[in-house]
């Protein structure tokens, strides 16, 4: 099939859609990356087969029950499981199946749809629906179901907070804003039970990626009409995903049961999934007490678990990210490049990361090792190498010679998960130790932080960037490009740096591209636009009886997040020993 081209204008529209749904630029970029990485099969790439591949000696357990949670997963009750109305309901996505889904590499692939085609310019999309698509009560989940679901989200009477997610659909916005009242004019139409035609406001080559996102999951019409807002209670819920909701004890636990009517049921091995509601402060305790078999880990527990008898259960999962410092070049004393250089060589990275208890390792550039564009040359390593003598030498001739006369310096960071603050405090400590720079650490509420950051108001910032997709364009252009008009984190601008990024973007040859980015990194570090400090690691733990995690192209096991949420269909339990 020929995929219609996706123009830059269309990508801008896509971003607007996602922003309207409350999604950040990060999610947009993740989805955009998936689109960019699509192979020749386009939207119709075949999903990976899911049947468990047992290792020799392994035996499927009789009891296919998985208990998961903790470490930040479901720390409180979802408001509902109605993703069709509210994509931030924080319900269980495994109850649902959309037309498309994202695979472990963030690419959209068909799911309830069996085939996706479009007209030439991508303004009309046709989804052929699997004929074995069923609701959990056994009735057919047809094109009509999706037509109704999309219209329900757009219907002003539903008051879906993120309805703008579907504004690409013809007349979707007008219907949602009550400019037209006849739902028949909305561009979603079931041509037959098994063919859904979506007419858009214009060419939208990315539409199938939207159809894979949480907000495009369907809702069951008879249940919604009968039970109103109580339709996702366990007693009422009819869904179309790999699992059904057997029980939902508020504040206690949710129990999922395999859905025998799910079209992919034969590839789903788990019979039951139990999700206890566990506050993040409980740490790994429930996991260690065998109350759960799969959990995310926080920094307070990692070392203890890793060094314990069951250390092998801990695994790292993909979460490439970089912690760095932003000295604001418009604010004293950082307007002086000598001060910035002193700071950059005053950071004892080896020691700072010790504080993270394994959730960080020393960084000498933006891109973590193992990812495209990662740089490990003596030249780059030397620029901001820890060297307190050199740091003090940079201060010669400045008003701060010998580490004296520092003005009041406030280091700002955002209030976030455990482990960020001790790192920042360690940075404070080494700055004091190396160049006698006293700093006050200010932890700002998320929204306040972002607003002040984007106004470039903060004097000195402790911040991280989590990679959205494995390409240096994301790590440099999306973060540091000087001509960005929105969401710029720093006042620092450098024309030579920008030029390298533009060349990197426009060059096809991979080797040459990477040379441009390496040059950019060198420029940025020499001018101290930022100070890389640490790369991020994330960990989860699974009992040896839990198997079947999908691996991404980098070979790491992936776990559910807001884009990929296909984990539970892949997992299976094996007998002990």
């Amino acid at each position: 099939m020929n995929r219609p081209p996706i123009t830059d204008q269309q990508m801008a529209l896509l971003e607007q859609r996602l922003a309207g749904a409350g999604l950040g630029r990060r999610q947009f970029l993740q989805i955009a990356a998936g689109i960019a990485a699509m192979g020749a099969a386009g939207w119709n790439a075949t999903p990976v087969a899911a049947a468990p591949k047992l290792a020799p000696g392994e035996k499927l357990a009789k009891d296919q029950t998985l208990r998961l949670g903790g470490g930040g997963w479901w720390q409180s009750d979802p408001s509902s499981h109605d993703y069709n109305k509210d994509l931030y309901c924080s319900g269980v996505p495994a109850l649902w199946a959309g037309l498309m889904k994202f695979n472990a590499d963030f690419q959209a692939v068909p799911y309830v749809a069996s085939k996706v085609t479009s007209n030439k310019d991508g303004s009309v999309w046709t989804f052929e629906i699997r004929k074995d698509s069923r609701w959990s009560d056994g009735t057919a989940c047809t094109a009509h179901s999706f037509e109704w679901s999309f219209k329900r989200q757009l219907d002003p009477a539903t008051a879906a907070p993120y309805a703008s997610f579907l504004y690409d659909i013809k007349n979707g916005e007008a219907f949602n804003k009550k400019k037209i009242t006849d739902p028949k004019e909305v561009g979603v139409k079931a041509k037959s039970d098994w063919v859904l035609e979506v007419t858009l406001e214009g060419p939208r080559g990315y539409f199938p990626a939207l159809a894979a996102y949480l907000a495009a999951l369907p809702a069951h019409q008879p249940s919604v009409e009968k039970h109103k807002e109580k339709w996702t209670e366990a007693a009422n819920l009819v869904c179309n995903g790999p699992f059904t909701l057997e029980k939902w004890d508020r504040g206690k636990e949710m129990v999922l049961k395999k859905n025998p009517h799910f079209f992919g049921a034969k590839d789903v091995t788990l019979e039951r999934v139990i999700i206890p509601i566990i506050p993040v402060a409980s740490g790994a305790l429930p996991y260690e007490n065998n109350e759960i078999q799969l959990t995310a880990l926080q920094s307070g527990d990692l070392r203890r678990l890793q060094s314990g008898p069951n250390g092998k259960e801990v695994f790292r999962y993909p979460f490439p990210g970089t912690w760095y410092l932003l000295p604001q070049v418009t604010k004293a004393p950082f307007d002086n490049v000598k001060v910035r250089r002193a700071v950059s060589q005053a950071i004892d990275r080896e020691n700072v990361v010790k504080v993270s208890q394994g959730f960080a390792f020393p960084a000498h550039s933006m891109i973590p090792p193992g990812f495209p564009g990662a740089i490990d040359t003596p030249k780059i390593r030397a620029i901001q190498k820890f060297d307190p003598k050199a740091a003090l030498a940079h201060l010669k001739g400045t008003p701060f010679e010998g580490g004296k006369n520092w003005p009041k310096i406030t280091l700002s960071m955002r209030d976030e998960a455990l482990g960020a603050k001790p790192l920042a405090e360690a940075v404070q400590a080494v700055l004091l130790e190396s160049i006698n720079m006293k700093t006050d650490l200010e932890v700002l509420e998320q929204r306040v932080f972002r607003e002040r950051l984007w106004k470039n108001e903060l004097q000195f910032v402790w911040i991280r960037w989590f990679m959205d997709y494995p390409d240096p364009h994301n790590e440099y252009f999306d973060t540091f490009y000087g001509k960005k008009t929105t969401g710029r984190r720093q006042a620092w601008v450098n024309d030579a740096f920008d030029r390298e990024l533009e060349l990197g973007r426009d060059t096809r040859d991979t080797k040459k591209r990477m040379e441009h980015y390496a040059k950019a990194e060198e420029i940025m570090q020499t001018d101290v636009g930022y100070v890389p400090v640490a790369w991020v690691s994330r960990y989860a733990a699974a009992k040896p009886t839990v198997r079947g995690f999908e691996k991404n192209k980098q070979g790491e096991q992936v776990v559910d997040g807001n884009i990929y949420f296909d984990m539970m269909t892949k997992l299976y339990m094996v007998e002990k020993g």
Partner: protein
Amino acid sequence: MRDAIRRLRRNKLAMVGFVVVMILAFLAIFADFIAPYSYTKTNFGRLNEPPSRDYPLGTDQIGRDMLSRMIYGARVSMLVGLGAQVIVVALGVPIGAISGFFGGRTDLLLSRFIDVMYAFPRLLFVILVMSMLGAGLMNIFIAIGLTGWVGIARQTRAQVLAIKEKEFVDGARAMGAGLGRVLIKHVLPNALTPIVVAVTFGIPEAIFTEAALSFIGVGINPPTPSWGQMVGEGQQYLRSYWHLCVFPAIAIAVTMLAFTFFGDGVRDALDPKQK
């Protein structure tokens, strides 16, 4: 007055409280000489260590001496306790006194204002003020002071209302003393007892409020240590490194108890009828 002091000295619990408070005050004032290390001195080779000979209370997440940080934390607590009370008294006593003494429309307006302020949930209001002012010791004084004066204002008003009807007040007026003079020279000194009691109870309350603020991260900024902040950061590591949060939590509890015992003693001593 001598009577009161004798009663206070006979109260054993109150004296224990007093001694603890004095020790804390001593630690706070001479922290620079007593603490074995600077509160910023890190040892990256020895993170999260349990108590040992080098570090009697262990080290924290970035290898700082817990004992030294606790001693400096006492300074923050004592400063907050006293500093906030200064603002509380400076606001609460005049407002209460004026309201009670002048009565009429003035009293109506001020009393209603006091009622409105009283209706705010205290801690939430403090958090609101802190988020407007930003973290820092001075701002904690202000935030606690701005929200804490209401109780003292009510107490003062009630006392002034009762005292201004007494004969000696009429006598002073008859002698030709002005209203202001009567209020300051004759009424207020006689209303002092409940104010002193309110202040002794206000100190632990302020200390606890600071601990709560720092616990949730809007109080004292690192690296300056505060007990509440230490508990807040340490509680996430309770399972792995218990000492991070247990010692500062004990310090807060002991301080609160000491002030409360002492405050109880002061109240009983000054006003034996209430016992």
